[in-house]
């Protein structure tokens, strides 16, 4: 499969839509065509049956007239006067017959004749054969005299009495060239038709046809009608569509519409596929960029959190960093420990608001600035004061809470200042108390008030515990409840002999058994003198 699920430059689903659409269109089109064909066949058949019934209804009129004449001739012993009287009104150009005559059964005659029967010009054999068939048929014998321009059809009949001696013969003229004059009867309009004497479509036996082009072609149907001792074979063919032209056009209307819809659906599918592909590409690119940014932020943050802490005599330090489980961006929490001289340490715990690369960058800037100011000999309050020049929440969207302390390992003295940071706790064998201090505004918030320095002295073996708000902040609680939890765990863990690292492990285990929503940094410092 080519890249991106394409073939011939388009997506596979598009091809599927195209193929399915074309198939459905073809099937519907063929079905519409079949419905039309069936409909037309049925209509032609109906028309043939209607026309056939018209012919059937015409036959008795001929047969009855000829039969009546035969009875009369037999009863009057072939009286010419009686025959003339009975038949004359029906003979003539506009009448039923063009001629009528009476013959002996053996072919002699005519005994009497009205009009000009064409049969007269026929041979005796031909005549005798016709009369014999009239006798044996016990019904009207039909003969076609189709030679010449004046084609005729003749009817011969004997009386129904036994012992018949005479034959009555009547002739009907067929239209010139046996071409039918346009029919008034609506059974015949709109179609081509041909009537043959006998069975089958022998051009020699055609009596009447609406067109010289025989046999009839196209959509056609045939029927047979009993006619004396013979048969009329009626064939009809549709010249045009008999049913609705819309049904006739339906197949290509369906086809055209189907092609149009298929093309539209295929185009839409292709567009959607390309849109999705583009969205996927963008999303993958975004994910890549995001992962890259996150990795940069993580790298930055990790490099800010020292694994190995500097030491001075008389001070044990332990640290924990617990990444938040909510969200994937790194937070801006940090801790830092730096040696100032052989007995003093700078200890910092801070928290930049927000998350991600922006927070990590502010954190890095603050961390190095604090180190630089501390190296210059600034005290904690001055350091925090100076940090305010580096960050502005109005400009950067980030602020930071920072707890900055200098601890003397010789004396256990802690000098500290807070920029909006949760207060640290001091714990010893007798309990745990949070340091009461006057906090200035967080770094990044402008204020005319400076930072106050608080000084305290740790009891021997006492522990200073500093942390970021992740340790105490819970949804639906005030911070005081978090502080109380820290106090409880720290008090319960008081065991002068256990390393300070154990206290931190216990705090993490008990206060964040399932991890923390927010990132959390904890620093524990024990004066071991």
């Amino acid at each position, binding site marked *: 499969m080519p890249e991106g699920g394409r073939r011939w430059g388009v997506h596979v689903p598009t091809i599927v839509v195209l193929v399915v659409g074309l198939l459905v269109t073809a099937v519907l089109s063929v079905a519409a065509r079949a419905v039309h064909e069936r409909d037309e066949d049925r209509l032609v058949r109906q028309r043939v049956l209607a026309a056939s019934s018209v012919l059937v209804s015409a036959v008795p009129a001929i047969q009855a007239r000829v039969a009546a004449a035969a009875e009369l001739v037999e009863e009057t012993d072939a009286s010419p006067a009686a025959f003339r009287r009975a038949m004359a009104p029906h003979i003539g150009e506009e009448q039923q017959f063009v001629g009528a005559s009476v013959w002996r059964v053996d072919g002699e005659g005519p005994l009497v004749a009205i009009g000009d029967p064409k049969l007269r010009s026929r041979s005796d054999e031909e005549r005798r054969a016709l009369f014999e068939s009239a006798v044996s048929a016990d019904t009207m014998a039909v003969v076609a005299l189709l030679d010449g321009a004046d084609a005729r059809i003749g009817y011969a009949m004997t009386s129904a009495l036994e012992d018949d001696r005479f034959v009555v013969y009547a002739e009907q003229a067929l239209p010139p060239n046996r071409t039918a004059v346009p029919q008034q009867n609506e059974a015949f309009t709109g179609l081509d038709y041909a009537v043959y004497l006998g069975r089958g479509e022998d051009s020699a036996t055609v009596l009447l046809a609406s067109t010289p082009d025989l046999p009839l072609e196209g959509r056609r149907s045939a029927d047979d009608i009993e006619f004396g001792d013979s048969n009329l074979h009626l064939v009809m063919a549709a010249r045009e569509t008999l049913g609705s032209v819309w049904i006739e056009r339906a197949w290509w209307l369906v086809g055209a519409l189907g092609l149009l819809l298929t093309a539209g659906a295929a185009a839409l599918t292709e567009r959607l596929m390309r849109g999705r592909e583009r969205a996927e590409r963008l999303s993958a690119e975004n994910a890549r960029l995001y992962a890259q940014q996150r990795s940069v932020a993580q790298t930055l943050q990790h490099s800010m959190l020292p694994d190995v802490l500097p030491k001075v005599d008389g001070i044990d330090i332990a640290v924990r960093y617990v990444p938040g489980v*909510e*969200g994937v*961006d790194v937070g801006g929490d940090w801790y830092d420990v730096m040696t100032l001289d052989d007995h003093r340490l700078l200890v910092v715990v801070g*928290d930049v*608001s*927000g*998350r991600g690369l922006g927070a990590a960058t502010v954190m890095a800037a603050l961390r190095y600035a604090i180190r630089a100011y501390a190296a210059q000999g600034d005290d904690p309050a001055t350091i925090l004061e100076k940090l305010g020049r580096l960050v*502005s*929440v*109005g400009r950067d*969207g*980030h*602020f930071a*809470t920072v707890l900055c302390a200098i601890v003397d390992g010789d004396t256990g003295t802690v000098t500290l200042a*807070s*920029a*909006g*940071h*949760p*207060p640290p706790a001091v714990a010893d064998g007798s309990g745990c108390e949070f340091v009461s201090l*006057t*906090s*200035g*505004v*967080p770094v*990044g*918030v*402008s*204020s005319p*008030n400076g930072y106050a320095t608080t000084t305290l002295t740790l009891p021997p073996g006492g522990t200073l515990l500093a942390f970021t*708000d992740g340790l105490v*902040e819970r*949804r*639906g*609680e*005030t*911070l*005081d409840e978090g502080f109380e939890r820290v106090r409880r765990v720290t008090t319960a863990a008081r065991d002068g002999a256990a390393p300070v690292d154990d206290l931190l492990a216990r705090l993490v285990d008990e206060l964040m058994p399932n991890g923390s*929503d*927010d990132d959390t940094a904890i620093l524990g410092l024990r004066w071991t003198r």
Partner: protein
Amino acid sequence: MSGPAERGHAALTNGADGRPCVSLAGEFDVSNADDLRRALDEIPRGQPAVVDATGLRFIDSSGIAVLLQHAERFGPIDVRNAPPILRRIVEISGLDDVLRIES
């Protein structure tokens, strides 16, 4: 973890004294701090910002940062009906002069 029902909602309304006031309800964190920012941005320029925190249940540093950013640009924010959670954050963070809690 915050469910949908607890999600923060911030809207500019008219306070009891007729001054425009941003009403806070629910929880605000990094995921919806921008909603808070948009509501604050609707306060007409030159008007002192007033926030009614009656329904506030939680706000993290991202939400506080939005409030502080606004205060830094346009002056201190008056906070009415601050619940204890917000009062303690303001006290501990030394923000009393920036987010002025009305008692």
